[in-house]
């Protein structure tokens, strides 16, 4: 059975409509918990889209994204507290340093394929957590506390309202989605997908595999680090067990996988469904429910792998189009 491919993407008007909803959301929903949840939806959406660049498009399945997240969080916290660098600039530098880290740490592992690569990413994240836990210069296990400043856009601190945080993370979320949108329609995007599909064929078509894998890792690490820096500003402290928690890596990968990898809409859908689900079950179950949300994820993933291996995007595709087949 030969398959014809069409309509793999969200129509643009749905994206624009979604954007409109996102812009008015905090004005319509004033509930603080709901607003916090929305912030986490966007933060995980940002990270899942960054994961998607590596995992979905290039086929580098990472289960250690928290390494980039934590390094970003630490770099901006450190630059701010030690050198008084403006949080916005610290956020950018944090992203760039993390991208560089991603490329350097990725160099030896980018030759690994499939699950061997994934295992290496877990190891990398654990090594980071342990290193930062023992690194006295950055506060070891105590982490770094950020001083409270007057609230303003310049100081990246807001005490009377969540709204600025919401719009900042929405902005970062839109940026990563625009990057993926452009990537999907560019030579680099084609090269990423070619590497994912078949490395030999990709090399035979003139693609420098190492270069494009590292590029993919670098872009992914950059945006994941932005999410980390955002969390630093949002919670005003970093701690190894907090910003290098392996559950973050797992959640990010699950959001992307559940949403459907290798398409722009996947991580967006995944974050919209999974994050509220876990935030609300956690609130509902209280402290005893710790970990139950992860079990819920697990169950959901299993159900999806069986019923709809292409994730929520696959479901969307089937609803919105009939797949044509030809003899």
């Amino acid at each position, binding site marked *: 059975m030969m398959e014809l491919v069409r309509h793999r993407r969200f129509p643009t008007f749905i994206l624009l409509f979604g954007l409109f909803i996102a812009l008015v959301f905090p004005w319509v929903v004033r509930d603080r918990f709901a607003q916090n949840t929305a912030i986490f939806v966007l933060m995980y959406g940002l990270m899942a889209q960054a994961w998607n660049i590596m995992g979905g498009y290039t086929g580098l399945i990472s289960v250690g994204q928290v390494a980039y997240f934590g390094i970003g969080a630490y770099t901006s916290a450190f630059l701010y507290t030690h050198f008084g660098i403006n949080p916005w600039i610290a956020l950018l530098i944090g992203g760039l340093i993390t991208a560089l880290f991603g490329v350097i740490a990725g160099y030896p592992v980018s030759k690994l394929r499939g699950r061997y690569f994934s295992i290496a990413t877990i190891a990398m994240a654990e090594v980071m957590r342990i290193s930062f836990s023992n690194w006295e210069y950055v506060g070891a296990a105590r982490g770094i506390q950020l001083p409270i400043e007057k609230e303003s856009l310049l100081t990246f601190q807001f005490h009377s309202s969540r709204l600025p945080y919401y719009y900042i993370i929405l902005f970062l979320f839109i940026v990563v989605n625009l990057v993926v949108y452009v990537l999907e329609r560019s030579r680099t995007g084609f090269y990423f997908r070619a590497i994912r599909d*078949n490395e*030999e064929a990709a090399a035979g*078509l003139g693609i420098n595999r190492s270069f494009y894998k590292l590029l993919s890792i670098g872009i992914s690490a950059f945006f994941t680090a932005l999410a980390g820096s955002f969390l630093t500003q949002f919670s005003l402290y970093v701690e190894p067990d907090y910003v290098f928690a392996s559950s973050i890596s797992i959640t990010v990968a699950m959001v992307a996988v559940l949403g459907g990898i290798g398409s722009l809409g996947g991580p967006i859908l995944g974050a919209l469904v999974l994050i509220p689900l876990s935030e609300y079950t956690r609130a509902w179950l209280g402290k005893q429910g710790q970990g139950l949300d992860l079990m819920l994820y697990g169950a959901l993933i299993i159900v999806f792998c069986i019923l709809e291996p292409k994730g929520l995007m696959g479901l969307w595709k089937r609803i919105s189009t009939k797949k044509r087949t030809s003899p």
Partner: protein
Amino acid sequence: MNTAILQVEDLYKDFGGLRALSGVSFTLKEGEITALIGPNGAGKTTLFNCITGFTPVTKGKILYRGKNITNWPPHKVVRHGLARTFQVVQILDDMTVEENVMVGAFLHEKTVQGARLLARKALQQSGIDHYTEHLAGSLPIPAKKRLEIAMALVTKPTLLMLDESMAGLTPTEFRDVQELILNLKKEGVTLVVVEHVMEAIMPICDRVLVLNLGVLIAQGTAKEVAENPDVIKAYLGDKYARNR
């Protein structure tokens, strides 16, 4: 037209204890079609892999237009105009036929639109333009083989190496490929063709190289090779010599 385009000098390839290529030397002349034949396991695919950088060479030298390309990475080899197909098709299963070829087209065209145009031409040339929108992984094998040829062509090779591109094709289908090969020759492309179907390759090639157990046991015109007693013993005996 008689300048050397590829020189292989005393090439060795060991896989652990197994010597897959043993002191292979030959020269390809620009614009010729060379048939590379030999029984299964002779080392034909390994030779392709060594030349195109997919397998590291154990010893020896490969010169392409006088430039030493030994152990260059595959993508660099392609960028210098040396393309190949694989005996076991290597295509991008989850991308459309057109997208598969576009990836190769990006070597010459930075824009998606430009790459699409180049891809369409290559698809037409290899006779699978009616599959443009299909998922590559879902094609039947003969179409996959043609897609692979299109992918190689779109990189605009000066030397094209085909590894059993006609295997499994019906006589009508392989006549199409024959015609394609002859057309490419007319355009000045040098070709090396590995083929088991003797009737398909012998009539159109200028020269034949015969490998057996990693050793180049004969080279010459089809006629010379067919009359070579070593070759008859190793390979051709039952398959081709008898038909003459």
